[in-house]
């Protein structure tokens, strides 16, 4: 099994999208920081938080900024997972692989472990890159005077959570693509579900259902904030309250359970389907 995981890891890193997609994201993050730099220097108060982002006693620490941005990294992870298995299905390489390792669930497990850990590493590197740029920006346009160990520990924990969430979404990407036999279908469906289905429609109209769903829990886990639901209506003049439902640690557990569900379903389907 170790050899299989190693082989799958090598195969994963040999893919262009594994290297180029995160590289493009790194460039985009850098571009965002450059824009933030000029905006802050020109005195836009909306970006004032950047000035004291590296201060432990400040209201906007790297972890609070990192959370929302880093919660998008699972989207990257899903795309990488979907395209990894999707390329095999499309090119027919899966057929050849199965003549080398016919135990399909072993192959799937090796792929999820090798690719998932690699994706976690990539996401963590991107998160570190983001923190480094934020810190540098604060040093240039604000202050890093209040930086202490707590700030770095919190930031490190947030980076680890980002890596874990990305690994889980990589696995979901692999599983969903196997189930629908199309990486494009899986990615499009996932993005629509993420941004429109769960984040908008279900959260707004079925808030007590949303707290159990994967995207809500993933966002909460990435942000390090409790999963909350809306009590009342966003369309009501009386307003609404945000009620805490469960902690971000439990959100991580629910996300892991969702991942397990998808992977088991995909494993079952992959074991019995004809490969032709």
């Amino acid at each position: 099994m170790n050899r299989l995981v190693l082989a799958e890891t090598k195969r994963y890193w040999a893919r262009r999208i594994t290297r180029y997609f995160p590289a493009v994201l790194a460039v985009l993050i850098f571009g965002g920081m450059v824009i933030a730099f000029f905006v802050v220097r020109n005195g836009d108060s909306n970006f004032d938080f950047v000035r004291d982002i590296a201060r432990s006693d400040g209201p906007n620490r790297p972890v609070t900024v990192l959370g929302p941005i880093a919660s998008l990294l699972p989207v990257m992870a899903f795309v990488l997972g979907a395209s990894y298995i999707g390329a095999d299905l499309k090119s027919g390489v899966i057929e050849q692989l199965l003549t080398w390792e016919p135990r399909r669930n072993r192959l799937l497990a090796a792929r999820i472990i090798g690719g998932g850990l690699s994706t976690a590493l990539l996401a963590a590197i991107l998160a570190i890159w983001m923190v480094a740029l934020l810190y540098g920006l604060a040093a240039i346009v604000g202050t890093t005077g209040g930086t202490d160990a707590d700030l770095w520990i919190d930031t490190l924990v947030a980076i680890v959570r980002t890596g874990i969430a990305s690994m889980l979404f990589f696995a979901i990407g692999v599983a969903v693509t196997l189930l629908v036999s199309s990486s494009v279908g899986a990615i499009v469906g996932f993005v629509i579900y993420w941004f429109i289905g769960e984040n908008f429609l279900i959260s707004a109209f079925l808030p007590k259902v949303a707290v159990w769903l994967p995207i809500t829990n993933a966002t909460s886990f990435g942000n390090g904030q409790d999963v909350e639901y809306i009590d009342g209506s966003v369309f009501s003049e009386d307003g609404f309250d945000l009620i805490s439902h469960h902690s971000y640690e439990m959100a991580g557990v629910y996300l892991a359970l969702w991942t397990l569900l998808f992977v088991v379903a995909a494993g079952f389907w992959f074991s019995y389907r004809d490969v032709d």
Partner: protein
Amino acid sequence: MVITSTGMNAIVELQGLRKVYRRGRSAEPVVAIERLSLQLGSPGTVHGFLGPNGSGKTTTIRCLLGLIRPTDGTVSVFGADATTKFHQVASRVGAIVENPKMFPHFTGRTNLSLLADLQGIPKTEVDRMLEIVGLLDRGDDTFASYSLGMKQRLAIAGALLKNPDLLILDEPANGLDPAGIAEMRVLIRSIAAAGKAVIVSSHQLSEIEQICDDITIISNGSLVVTGPLQKIRADHAGRQGVIVAIADRNAAIETLRSSGIVATPLPNEAEIMAEVEPSRAPEITKMLSQAGQYLHGMRIQSATLEDIFLELTAPPPPGASATAVATPPTAGSPTAAPPTAPPPVRPPTIEGGTR
């Protein structure tokens, strides 16, 4: 293990194999393989697996590689159930199914290295395989940049990487130029000469004829005939004889008939055909020369594999019953389902099962 018609141990055994595809709920089920029972592959031999397009060759190969599940029946490879236990023998089986399948944006060397990693095969083997298939100097080019022939050769290198005891090649000559086909022929024979079993699925019959020891022909998912090529050729020889080109055809026909040999004029005005064993050609020459009739030319008329294939896989005439019961071959003799009568000309004969 069972004993094949060649008297050797069969590596692959199919018993009552049946595969029905159902595409969608409303679609009619399609029978791809219909109760196929046969043995394939013996160490040191090349077994040709033939059939018209859509006859079920690739489906059969996929079944024996555990890629698809039979609807009914069993497939064993090296004694292991291919559907559930193929992993026990996978290291002994190298295969190419249909087209060469590699990652298009990886180099040839990377593609092979990634396969080698799956079984801990040393990198030196990758270069050795590239050299064997003549791609060592193109190993660092991407698979997508290869010609179809080069892709085919790389896929063969991938299949050989495991040093398999059984090599299954599905249409290996596809896309190869004449020189490539000749090289492929030599390669396949050399693999068999090294004691490996090779199963080659193809519709390039002249190639099969040159490299195979045994053949199996299937049609519409059912067995038509299986056994040693020489034996099948002898049993389905059809109209064989010696064709003589001579100036005075009538005189030559009379001379031969006076010696009890049936001779008939051919559409070509200068030729006659003496219906004798090809081995009697020198006797014909002598008879005619002693009668003062000298030959312009002579050639042997015998059935090619293509003739046999076309004869055995011809569609049935309208109204003919289309039934066939495939039975395993017995030692030393080919099996046809049902047996065909020796044909004076190519008759429309059998059709295996229904689809």
